[in-house]
């Protein structure tokens, strides 16, 4: 059975949640709450922490990893049916992440290249990662965080040094609580990706420390995204910020160092590609692992090939342009996240709350060892 360290789990969870949010969340939240976007993101720490408590409780009180725990809590038939839907949610999540990323690349970096080339290249790399196993993805994830996270913060720091107008953050008091709540929700729902812990925790070398790992992911996510949102507001002001499709992208593009280093958005995208790769790989792994567990298969890696076709086709057919993909991301994904990553775990949490503690060795709950 594979074993991954808690730091690797931290990296994987951060890579699952952050790359897409780094680009999308500041934009979405700024559209809703203007200059208070960073405050909304900061406040998302509260529902984020509650969600983490839910996951931790589930982990402590279930003897088998996800999706087997669905059968334990909801019965064999309902558990299997819901598990089946989870497969689609993970595959759809992977396809949306891939399509959104590819649409951005296609529109900004190498515009004349067909999207299918990007999708094919990205799927090929992720497929290779998946074939080599989860432990390998975890190692690569570690590398990406060690180098990528400091660069992400560095970009924010440099952006802040361009033409900052701190007055853009004012006024605080003009908060419309309805929009603010919506803003919090949009900042928070991506944290539903942390549900991956219900699978990853079973491979941990130190399960007692999983709660602190989850909270570290939450803190890093909140700090990074709220800082990005704040800096984009400081940089462009809330009015102009509302007109920009990707404030983070624009923020990087405006960086100018010594009148020589300019337009480094391409570099940012190049680094961001790595983050997106990890997000795609982890979500894809979740899909394959769920299939394996649901159908009691020996291994999950052989599922990478057939599922790659599904992901490729879904992501190609998802939308004709980036606007359509954005509509999916803004309107459909929050619903999917709410149902599958927040609502259903909540139901399981309540079921486990009233169910006697199995008291079994939770580390041995995996049906088939994963290599």
């Amino acid at each position, binding site marked *: 059975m594979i074993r991954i*360290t808690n*730091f*690797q789990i931290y990296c994987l969870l951060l890579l699952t949640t952050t790359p897409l949010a780094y680009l999308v969340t500041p934009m979405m939240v700024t559209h809703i709450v203007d200059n208070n976007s960073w405050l909304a993101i900061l406040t998302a720490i509260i529902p984020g922490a509650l969600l983490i408590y839910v996951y931790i409780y589930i982990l402590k009180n279930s003897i088998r990893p996800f999706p087997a725990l669905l059968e334990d809590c909801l019965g064999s038939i309902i558990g299997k049916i819901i598990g089946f839907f989870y497969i689609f949610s993970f595959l759809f999540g992977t396809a949306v992440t891939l399509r959104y990323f590819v649409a951005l*690349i296609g529109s900004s*970096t*190498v515009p004349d*290249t067909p999207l299918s*080339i*990007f999708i094919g*290249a*990205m799927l090929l*790399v992720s497929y*290779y*990662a998946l074939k*080599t*196993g989860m432990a*390998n*993805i975890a*190692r*690569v994830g*570690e*590398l990406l965080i*060690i180098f990528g996270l400091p660069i992400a913060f560095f970009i924010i720091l440099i952006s802040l040094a361009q033409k900052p107008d701190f007055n853009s953050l004012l006024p605080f008091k003009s908060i419309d609580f309805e929009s603010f709540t919506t803003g919090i929700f949009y900042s928070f729902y991506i944290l539903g990706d942390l549900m991956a812990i219900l699978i990853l925790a079973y491979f941990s070398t130190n399960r007692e420390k999983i709660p602190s790992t989850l909270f570290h992911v939450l803190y890093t996510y909140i700090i990074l995204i709220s800082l990005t949102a704040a800096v984009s507001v400081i940089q462009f002001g809330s009015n102009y910020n509302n007109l920009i499709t990707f404030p983070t992208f624009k923020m990087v593009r405006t960086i100018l160092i010594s*009148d*020589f280093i*300019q*337009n*480094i958005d*391409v*570099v940012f*995208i*190049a*680094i961001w*590609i*790595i983050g997106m*790769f990890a997000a795609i790989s982890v979500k894809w792994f979740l899909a394959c692992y769920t299939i394996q567990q649901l159908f009691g298969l020996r291994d999950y890696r052989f599922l990478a090939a057939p599922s790659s076709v599904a992901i490729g086709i879904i992501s190609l057919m998802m939308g004709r342009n980036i606007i359509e993909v954005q509509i999916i991301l803004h309107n459909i994904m929050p619903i999917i996240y709410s149902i599958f990553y927040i609502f259903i775990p909540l139901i399981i949490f309540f079921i486990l709350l009233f169910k006697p503690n199995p008291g079994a060795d939770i580390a041995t709950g995996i049906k088939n060892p994963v290599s």
Partner: protein
Amino acid sequence: MRYMRGRRKKDSPPPTPEIIAQPISDDIQENLDNLHLLLERCSDAVFKEFAFGPDLKIRGLVIYFDGLVDRQEVEDHLLKSLMLEINMQDDNKYHWPKHDIFQWIKDSILSLSEVKTVTTLQDLCHSISSGDTVLLIDGYDTGLIAGTRSWQGRSVQTPESEVVVRGPKEGFTETLRFNTALLRRRLKTANFKIESFVLGRITKTDVALCYIEGIAPEELIAEVKKRLGNIDIDGILDTGYLEEFLEDNHWTIFSQMEYTEKPDRVCGHLLEGQVSIMVDGSPIALIAPTSFPRFVIASEDYYERYIPSSLFRIMRFCSFLVALLLPSLFVALITYHHEMIPSPLYLTIASAREGVPFPAFFEALLLEITFELLREAGLRLPRSIGPAISIVGALIIGDAAVKAGLVSTPMVVIVAFTGIASFITPSYNAGIIIRIARFAFLIASGFLGLFGIMIVLLAFLIHMASLTSFGLPYLSPLAPFNPGQMTDIIVRRPWFINTMRPTMKGIRNAVRQKSSDTNE
């Protein structure tokens, strides 16, 4: 004719495999006949028959291969003792034993430090092929092996591929025993073990597995022995043969073992719990396990003071990235992402490229291939003219290509700079990896710009992360991340705080300094 083909002559000798499997006979004539058959057409085989003992009644036979033995030693300590000195003794003083003459000669007559026994013709042949001399005595079915190995070999010299300014300059030679002696001289402990193996069905090559007992993990030693034991090949001529057998993953361009010609470097690795494998006839020692970041570390780092060493090491890491990525980045920037280049610089590059008929990608590829050709030619050309030819070739070809408008000057500068950067990597096998990988990056950047570079980078990272060297993750201590050990990878940790050995699974004594639980 059909019948003739399958028929064996009545008195024809048995085939060689049957003879060699036989034990040594107590009839010396039979042994002599068998050995003559076995060593037929071996003009360097020397058979010396003689008689000794009371009334010269005992027949003896000495066999060796000319050129592999110290003839002086054979004559002085073997033949002279048996043929002359033993017979010149006065009968009163000299008591011929009544029973075991063989044991008496072994213990009392042969004045050689290394005397062993042999009972089969196969072992006898192996011994004489290794440079030993065998003595057979009539009436005894056992032979005596006298350690008389001595052959012409290269003396200890400075290794050409690992030049250092500060630090030991000795290098291994082609003689295994000299090489192990160079290690033994540095590791004056009984815990330093050298286990011998004979590999190669025909070559019978001596292979040595070196490690420090009490530091090297037992599982590692057992695994190396197991893998060595599984090798069944006709010949081992260099450590390169073994490397491919011993690696965890065969289908990769990444070398999973380090190699060196420097005994001090091997000792440094042995002190860190690794093992070394050496082969007779090769001046290269293999070191296992290893990880990729270690390829950027030079032995000199540990001889120079830690601050300059650390700076040099950081520079080496940077040059590693330059050697790997610079041409592809340049191609990506001027082909796809020219908005990133400041206008004055871009204009300079554009004006230099004006009239060049090839796209930047093809231009870079052309120059890179030319550079590799020149480098390869420089290695193969005779030493006296090689460097001159390669330098002149590079200058003339580069200059002519620019003047002909086939390539631009910025591209020549980029490729030349990349070439220089690739030589900074101290490990030759890492240099090979860079050279191969650079082409992959170049092609990817030509087709997809920075996106292509990142995709190839990811593919390489995934591949490297999937590799192991005797169970040690290939990217450790980067992945799995080990912050403590990273301080001796990115920079060179000062000796006064370098209290622990690098973390390795199963390492038996992790403490380097101020430890009470050392073995000695």
